[in-house]
């Protein structure tokens, strides 16, 4: 193996590692954004149910909070899996 080949191999290996780290960071960033989005949904459902009060608002609010819990759960899962 020539020194040039060694250099290429080194570059490719390090690039591969970088890509994986970038992928991991990207996924975690996306999940954090998703968590913010789900928090925004909770707030929005609260405002919407103030505008029109019906009988399934509690269920909708519960579902919105469920979405927040789900997104937190997926962030924790991502930290373990990736």
């Amino acid at each position: 193996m020539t020194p040039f080949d060694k250099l290429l191999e080194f570059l490719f290996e390090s690039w591969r590692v970088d890509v994986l780290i970038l992928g991991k960071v990207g996924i975690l960033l996306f999940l954090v954004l998703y968590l913010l989005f789900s928090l925004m949904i909770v707030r929005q459902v609260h405002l919407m149910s103030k505008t029109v009060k019906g009988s399934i608002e509690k269920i909708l609010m519960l579902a919105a909070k469920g979405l927040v819990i789900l997104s937190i759960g997926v962030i924790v899962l991502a930290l373990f899996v990736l």
Partner: protein
Amino acid sequence: MPDIFVAKKKSIEGKRQVSQMGQVSQMSQMRQVRKGRQVSGKRKRHGMGPRYRRVAERLSKERRKGNVRSFSILPGKVRFETQETREKIILLLRQHWVTQFSWVLTAGLMIWAPLCLLWIPILDFLPGNFQFMIIVIWYLLIVAFIYEKFILWFYHVFIITDERVIDVDFYNLLYKEVSEAKIDNIEDVTYRQGGMMKAWLNFGDISLQTAAEKQEFMIENVPQPFKVVKILNELKLEEEHEKIEGRVR
């Protein structure tokens, strides 16, 4: 001679008694009406004629149970932000369910889409844990999509009360528009029902022309548009009656 005069006197007294009794019964009827009770035996209310029944009373027989309906008559538990204490919701309208079919179908396809990876392995260049996380994220997106679409449909309502019409629009999660018009300001009500699907499933668009600055209200894809127009016209008439009697709230 005296006999005649005595007899006349008696009849006058009798008439007086009858008229006094009549006044007393009228006053008691008025008191009952003020308290909100219906006058026994007759349907006479508020001087609107013996056969007159308010729109809300007439529609109470057509009332059906159900929380997630696109056409609710007298939805008892529903209240809205600017509702006054004595204001009664007559109709609550949402878009017909068939108009939501497109996103339901999209969501259904999205749920089954990861199965395509068995035949088209486009994620194979990634390590297994990354592939797994991408599929989890895909399903998170589907959940958010379904939830957002549902709440946007659920809260996009058109409310008709005995006093006014209110249009609540949520174009997306961050933009809300609430517009309202008094029923006596509505000048013209028209409805359109074009296309096979709309004719078959009986839904269409209603436009209300108002005298106010905002010229037109548009309610899109509501079920039974003819019935809505009929109820609106009846409410308009009722408002006119109330105006004549000076009972405007």
